[in-house]
């Protein structure tokens, strides 16, 4: 189970506390911050990169719309709004909303549902283990027997970057040795048999 990072914005101390204790019942939930105002909203999001933002509707309306739109295009978070009464929020950025009067089970359900969706997405990202174009280019050089220094010079990158790429290739493919990587490169037509010395 992967971690889900929550950040809370709510004026009422008691409600913040209540939410924090409720989140303890959600598997993998971690609260990165708990605030009574939405000042510095943008920098908090940038620093903490939360998965789910739970925010009071009134605090939310203090934030510049443009700021939120910019953030949402750059960061991958979901928003759950908190309102006093049951009311309709038309904002498409809101995944769901919870009310002051709502029962615990219902709130838990809503949060769980979003967490579940998020983790499903994350898993899909992780399953996509194919190597990137850049890594493919590096793998080609490795399979041809080039040293890190030679690869760095050829691709105009630092030797350090080459090493990082190589580590990622090894991690993604589960193949450690140069001979093994060469076999992979041939099987996937990254290099040709005739390239072998």
């Amino acid at each position, binding site marked *: 189970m992967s971690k889900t990072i929550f950040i809370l914005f709510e004026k009422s101390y008691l409600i913040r506390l209540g939410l924090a204790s409720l989140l303890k019942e959600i598997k993998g939930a971690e609260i990165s911050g708990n605030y009574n105002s939405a000042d510095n909203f943008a920098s908090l999001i940038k620093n903490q990169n939360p998965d789910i933002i739970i925010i009071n509707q009134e605090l939310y309306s203090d934030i510049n719309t443009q700021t939120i739109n910019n953030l949402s295009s750059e960061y991958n978070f979901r928003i759950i709004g908190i309102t006093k009464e049951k009311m309709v929020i038309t904002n498409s950025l809101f995944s769901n909303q919870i009310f002051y009067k709502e029962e615990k089970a219902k709130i838990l359900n809503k949060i769980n549902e979003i967490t579940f969706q998020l983790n499903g997405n994350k898993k899909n990202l992780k399953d996509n283990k194919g190597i990137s174009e850049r890594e493919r280019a590096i793998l080609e050089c490795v399979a041809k027997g080039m040293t890190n220094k030679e690869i760095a010079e050829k691709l105009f990158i630092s030797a350090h970057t080459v090493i990082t790429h190589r580590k990622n290739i090894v991690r993604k*493919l*589960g*193949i*450690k*040795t140069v*001979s*093994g990587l*060469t*076999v*992979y490169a*041939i*099987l*996937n037509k990254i290099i040709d*048999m005739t390239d*072998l010395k």
Partner: protein
Amino acid sequence: MEYLGLITKDQELANLIYTDIELLSLLRRFNIKLGVGDKSIEEVCKSNGVNVDFFLEIVNIFHNKNYFPTAKLQSFSISLIVNFLKESHIYYNEEMIPAIEALIHQLVWTGDDHERNLKILKKFFNEYRKEVKAHTQQEEETVYPYTVFVEESCMKNKNIKACYEKMQEYSITNYAEEHNNIEEKLTDLKNIIIKYLSPSRNQDIAFKVLSELFKLEKDLNHHAAIEEKILVPKILEMEKKLKNLNSSKKA
């Protein structure tokens, strides 16, 4: 610590094989032949001149996943341990690896893939075979004789000076540092076959190759553990003793 399910010397040797067929390869290494009747492990060991306590420990390490009694294993003599390691080398180089190689040669693919796949697999495994051979040869020619020499000098308190000089040239620390990992290529090959190689027409052979690779890997892990956790610390201890003996002789 009490271990459940440990094999004991009063059990029938035949039972050992019924319980865990993988232990069969160990019998070979201890030169125990089949046709054991209903003799106990102790009886069979005695009649074959095998140290029964050592045999039991090795059998139990191979049979029980988490069993590795370091202190107990370190109480056995270096020559006993080294002999077993050498026998294992023979098993790898002359049995396991050729058997896997022969299986790889039997793999068949459809169309153009065949020539290419077989060629690269053969090449890869050939390199691996040479790597294992070189690794084991170096141990047999340099490392093991050195450890036996150290033990002898230490135990009999003779040739201290000669042994000390040898230690200056090559100590077990060198070995521990350069002891390279011959399992890496094996792991790669497993992954290539499981994930990246297009399916061969004879999948039964591919499955056999894999199961042999896993078997070899497991054996090599035990082997490396005995070298790194038993042989090396034991010799380190003796090297310290040698150093003291040498300086007291000078004094």
